[in-house]
């Protein structure tokens, strides 16, 4: 298995064997969703209208939470420094870590979203649409997350800073993400929103590894 596969397999093995890392993210996702009715009130119609936005906010927050695990452990035990001397250029290694991050942070949320849809009394049609927009949008969140994590890896207590940095960059993803779910009055532009979302995801996933590698190299050791 070449270096790309090795990095991907190692990250997956570390997280799954690491006990509970994935589970905590899913729990956080569900809790953010469950808290909404307490704050907004149990009125079914209102919840149904808010549901797509709330699921997206829950996914957005829990992906921010999983950011610190991306580069910091490797930086602290010296692996990141050695990965620069690997057979594969650093952007490719970062791409492998990005894929692992999506599999560990975003995929579990997609699998857990039916539970939230049930709790927020979403109808089946808009649930499938939400799932689709999440699947298309979360790679962009993972890509921006990788950039944010690589920038703050060099800072001692930078863990809190990455979410602040990438929240503004993720505004378009949220807008088109929720926009891709047809809801309520007004012109139905969910089709075009989904296309914009896909475009942003593709651009982000294509450029993030290079930007992240550049930030890691610029950070020196």
């Amino acid at each position, binding site marked *: *298995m070449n*270096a790309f596969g090795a990095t991907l397999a190692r990250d997956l093995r570390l997280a799954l064997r690491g006990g509970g890392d994935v589970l905590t993210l899913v729990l956080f996702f569900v809790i953010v969703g469950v808290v909404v009715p307490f704050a907004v009130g149990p009125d079914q119609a209102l919840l149904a209208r808010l549901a797509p936005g709330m699921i997206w906010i829950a996914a957005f927050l829990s992906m921010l939470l999983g950011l610190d695990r991306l580069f910091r452990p490797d930086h602290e035990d010296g*692996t990141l*420094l050695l990965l620069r001397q*690997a057979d594969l250029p650093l952007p490719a290694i970062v791409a492998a870590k990005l894929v692992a991050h999506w599999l560990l942070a975003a995929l579990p949320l997609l699998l857990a979203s039916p539970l939230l849809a049930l709790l927020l009394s979403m109808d089946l049609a808009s649930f499938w649409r939400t799932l689709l927009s999440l699947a298309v949008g979360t790679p962009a969140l993972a890509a921006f997350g990788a950039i944010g994590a690589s920038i703050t890896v060099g800072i001692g207590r930078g863990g809190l800073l990455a979410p602040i940095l990438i929240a503004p960059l993720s505004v378009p993803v949220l807008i088109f993400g929720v926009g891709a779910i047809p809801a309520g009055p007004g012109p139905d532009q969910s089709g075009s929103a989904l296309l914009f979302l896909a475009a942003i995801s593709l651009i982000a996933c294509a450029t993030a590894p290079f930007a992240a590698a550049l930030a890691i190299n610029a950070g020196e050791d």
Partner: protein
Amino acid sequence: MSPRQVFPALSLHAQALQCGRGGTVLGRPVDLAVAPGTALLLRGPNGAGKTTLLLTLAGVVEPLEGNFALRGWDPDEGPVLHFCGHRNAVKPRLSVRENLQFWAQVNGGGGLAVPQALEQVGLDMLANLDAGYLSAGQGRRLALARLLVSPRPLWLLDEPTAALDRDGHALVGRLIDGQLDAGGLVIAATHDAIALAGPGRATTLTLERAP
């Protein structure tokens, strides 16, 4: 001993290389000429810039002034060096074998197979143990094993004998000898003496702190 892996004749030359980090100048400008198949031992007090010099040669840190050149290595043959710093880059939750296999795959094997490399550094009995249980010295041996699984001409070692016992020192000597036999270069920053086979194989450079 290590397989006869003949590297192209490689030599390292530096002219008035001034290293530093975060804008602070460390040590004095350094002139180096490391002939193929020889080792360079860096001595000097703490803070004399030994680690920074190694990081500069590894291309991680940028030299402030002067330059260094690696003659005899074609850049598109891939990475040329191994850096072995204070941190062993060992994942506690992976087993010893998995750790080494990862490095073999990432650095592109070609050297010793994983079991033989573990045997060389005396960790073959602990192959299935989680690396978290290793002692500092054993972790150091695992880091050294990484150098064996994917042969590279230039070794940059930062205190390789740290946390190692007496036969650990002998092991380091043997590994460096093996590398020099294969025509590679070794630059090691170390406080304790490293016993090499021949006297002529190692030159010593003592760095002092900046004035």
